[in-house]
């Protein structure tokens, strides 16, 4: 609840939240992967 309030996802429709969360997760995944490869 705090997460959707702070990021204002609270005001978005479910499908918009899904878009945002999938982008966030994919970017985080890419960052972890690239960080791992880089290390």
């Amino acid at each position, binding site marked *: 609840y705090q997460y959707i309030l702070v990021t204002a996802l609270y005001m978005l429709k479910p499908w918009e939240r899904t878009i945002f969360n999938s982008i966030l997760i994919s970017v985080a995944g*890419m*960052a972890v*992967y*690239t960080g791992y490869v880089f290390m």
Partner: protein
Amino acid sequence: MNSRGIWLSYLLGIGLLHVILLSIPFASVPVVWTLTNVIHNLCMYLLLHLVKGTPFETPDQSKARFCTYWEQMDYGVQFTASRKFLTITPIVLYILTSFYTKYDQDHFVVNTVSLMTVLIPKLPQLHGVR
């Protein structure tokens, strides 16, 4: 652009953009820096120098409707702190990008053209010029 924390948020936004691009596995560091520079300048050009008016109703009988964000800032007063900050930031980003692309010629041309697109509209001589 004068309210508290907006400059910090803007710099964090550039940093976040760079980290997102950096996390693309197959992108090299020079490409990432050039992309950061170009995307930042593109967004800045669109938001500050292309879109006109305000995204909400203003009580000034739509006087601001034909002005860009850059022209509306600080009621049109030139050389304010916000204007200086928004002028210097793309230049610093450009210098950093040139350094990280090892002054490669192709990158240099792309980055220079991109920088000019956000510096020229900021000149006081071009205030209100279409």
